[in-house]
């Protein structure tokens, strides 16, 4: 069994709590109309990006590109350094990270750093072939994050084939919550995506969403890119909006909290306060 360094797990937990608390406040402000619709909240998957980030850090991979899609707030918050700009964006302000053009779904982090998050057009899954093209043309590692519905797009399937043909340096992360809006995977298709990518010759795994599992599989397979990791996860809130469909089957953040012990309560309270202040100051800046 993979043992994760406790300090690393605490870092992952801290960022994850920040992400979740950010989303809770986004939901609250969405209810009152301060944050505009449509909004795609990442509650339930907020720990995946911090886990990838910390794992890449451990692997000493410092320069890479990220291509994601909607439900990407946690990805932005984890890899970018200005949560205020996301708040501005969600409020439709020109001060936002994409000047109000991106909204909740099409975020990019345009600051010129080693880690760059590219925008998404709104066509589900088109980040997959774009990411593959970027990886092949630049030879810079790419993390491509998608969902279980996005991988069904025909252009995604063509891109997986191209990625293995050209041995593109790309890590595919499929956040598989088993739902497309509310349509279950089994209703939409009779096949598994990791079987498809595996059959093309891509190293592919289907795993749970615990940070230890994710980190361990990334470390084991990172030297054999392209690599497809299907992560079974939970979407705690609506596809779009601030509501809740059903209680989640599991809550990974709570599991991590139990693993790191009492310090989790202190971290949670600290992060709550930090997030609350950031929202308050940002909304004041916007005159809201």
């Amino acid at each position, binding site marked *: 069994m993979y043992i994760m360094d406790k300090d690393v797990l605490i870092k992952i937990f801290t960022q994850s709590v920040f992400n979740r608390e950010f989303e809770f406040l986004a939901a609250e402000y969405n209810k009152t109309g301060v944050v505009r619709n449509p909004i795609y909240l990442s509650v339930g998957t907020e720990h995946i990006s911090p886990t990838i980030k910390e794992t890449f850090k451990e692997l000493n991979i410092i320069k890479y590109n990220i291509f994601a899609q909607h439900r990407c707030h946690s990805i932005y918050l984890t890899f970018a350094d200005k949560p205020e700009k996301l708040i501005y964006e969600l409020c439709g302000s020109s001060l936002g990270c994409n000047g109000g*053009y991106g909204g909740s779904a099409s975020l*990019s982090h*345009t600051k010129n750093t080693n880690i760059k998050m590219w925008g998404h057009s709104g*066509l589900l899954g088109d980040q997959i072939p*774009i990411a593959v*093209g970027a990886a092949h043309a*630049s030879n810079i590692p790419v993390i491509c994050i998608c969902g279980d519905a996005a991988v069904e797009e025909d*252009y995604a399937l063509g*891109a997986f084939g*191209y990625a293995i043909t050209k041995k593109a340096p790309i890590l595919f992360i499929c956040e598989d919550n088993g739902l497309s809006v509310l349509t279950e995977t089994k209703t939409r298709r009779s096949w598994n995506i990791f079987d498809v990518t595996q059959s093309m010759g891509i190293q592919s795994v289907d795993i749970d969403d615990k940070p230890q599992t994710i980190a361990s599989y990334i470390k084991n397979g990172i030297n054999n890119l392209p690599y497809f990791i299907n992560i079974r996860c939970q979407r705690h809130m609506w596809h779009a909006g601030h509501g809740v469909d059903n209680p989640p089957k599991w809550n990974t953040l709570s599991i991590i909290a139990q693993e790191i012990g009492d310090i989790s309560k202190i971290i949670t309270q600290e992060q709550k306060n930090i997030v609350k202040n950031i929202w308050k100051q940002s909304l004041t800046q916007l005159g809201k």
Partner: protein
Amino acid sequence: METVADTIREITKKHLLESNGLLYGQCVTAVGWIGGTVPELTEKDGIVELPTSDSSNPAIVCGAALMGRRPIYVIRYQGFMCYNAVTLLNYAAKSKTLWNEPCPVFIRSIAMEGSIGPVASNSNHSMIIHHPGMPVIAPMTPLEWTNGWNYFLRHDDPIYCSEHRKSFTIDYEMSNIIHENPVVTIIGISNGRIEAIEATKQLNHKNIKTNLFHQVWLKPFKPSNDLLLSIKSSRITIIVDSGFQTCGISESIAYNLIHMTNSNSIYAFAIADKTAGFSTETDNLTPSSLQIFNFAIERLKK
């Protein structure tokens, strides 16, 4: 003098070998090398053979553009744009506005016509023009193609270059034909220009003073003063295109020119609203010089 094909091939070669550029396409290294427009180089040199996946390929090219490789994307038949347009229009053309990130792809989309079927026939530049964010050119001469390429290098927009197979052997430039006090003004687009040249000759031969303007830039459309003056002096103006007329660039230009000149005798004359087949009986071609001539005569009778 170099033909259009020679020009494209040599510019491409330089781009790949000297500027770290890339050229993507399906079956580009096959027999003929796309009418001699692709240099006989390898993947190591920058020619990337793509799989037969018209929906993912343009997105792969967009990814290369984001990484600064200034890719050329060859689409062998413009009808393939029905699939290929998706990411080019929805990502490449919008990227700079949405995220301040340019996605410069040079799209070589090649038209042909004549017993070549429902997909490979005709130009499809109008469907690209309809969407925001992508300049569109339709060069027919070596210098026009070179100018389009230089524009691409100087700017960071994706560009749709609507080529026509009939241009590949052309080794000369085309000048506007301008008379004082014309009766007819013809604006030619793409292969419509070849037919329009002949129609202009025939009309002038019949003492119907006819001016001809070659329209290379389709978007943005910026008519010259000479063109506007010619339209104002003419009894009729005809816009000839090798793409579909219905809701196409010929009708769009006509609409704009009506408002710019207050002339109400401006007509679009382009490809009919029907599907082409694989026989001469089922062809749907660019209006011929004779058809343009007759079209002008009929309108002048009114």
